[in-house]
């Protein structure tokens, strides 16, 4: 399995994202899609992709969606996840998020993570918007 066309590797990853990447991105019809190819290091005891890894990946896509949709940096306040189906190692996974509501302080975001065959994880999160002046570093 190779990386699908159009996806670019996210450079400058640090810490957790670097240790569990590489992650990829692609713009499609105005939506930002993140993708990654799960390997053995992402597996749980059953040999499928670990729920924690799926959670981390969807969270990152949803946080990115906030910046994409309303140009604000954000951190996760709360996140609710429904595990809909297993993700297999070697199956290309994609995640995307969409801001469904926001005010000056918080944004409500829906997210989905899916494989080639079915939906894997559904998310609903509230993200705290950082000051427009502040960067994440």
């Amino acid at each position, binding site marked *: 399995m190779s990386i699908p066309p159009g996806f670019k590797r996210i450079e400058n990853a*640090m*810490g*957790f994202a670097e240790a569990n990447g590489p992650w990829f991105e692609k713009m499609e019809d105005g939506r930002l899609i993140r993708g990654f190819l799960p390997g053995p290091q992402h597996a*749980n*005891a059953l040999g499928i992709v670990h*729920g924690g*890894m799926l959670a981390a990946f969807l969270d*990152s896509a949803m946080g990115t969606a906030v910046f994409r949709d309303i140009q604000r940096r954000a951190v996760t306040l*709360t*996140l609710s996840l429904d595990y809909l189906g297993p993700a297999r190692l070697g199956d290309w996974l994609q995640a995307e998020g969409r801001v469904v509501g926001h005010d000056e302080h918080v944004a409500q975001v829906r997210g989905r993570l899916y494989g080639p065959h079915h939906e894997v994880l559904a998310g609903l999160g509230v993200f705290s918007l950082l000051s427009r002046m502040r960067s994440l570093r």
Partner: protein
Amino acid sequence: MKTDDHPPEGFLRIDFDRGRPETTFNSHIGNLYVRKGEKGTRDEFVMGLRVHQHMCNPAGGLHGGMMMTVADLVGSMGGTTLIGLRKFVPTINMTFDFVAPAKVGDWVEGRCEVVRATRSMLFSNIYLTVGEEKIVRASGIYKIPSGDGLAFAKAKLDRGAELAGERPPS
């Protein structure tokens, strides 16, 4: 394996990959420890970890994905331990509130409370803490497989033959 974790007394590293040719996610993300305490107390099952750079976000704090992974494990491994169940319980739903950050060098602990366990479902409440401060509140819903499910005996505590024969943490 890192050796600079300096876990508090009583914490033993969990060996998730016993007999496996490749490192799986629980080992890949860093060392996780567990301490078993007196039955019926809040310390009956405590998971612990030392925060390292490879678990962090660009801001230098413990990554939310890492917090979620640990909370999920505390709710499932801890929850099944508390009810005396030896099965792998797949996660159905998790809800997380990220109430405070943790930084490199912090010792993070996770504890859970079983809200209810039926024949087919396990409901857990989970807290992650640094010292007395809560950093994550989470709740988890897990499926208890019918029949024998998967006998989940791959993880064990890394204390050699000393306590051979004792049941693994999950």
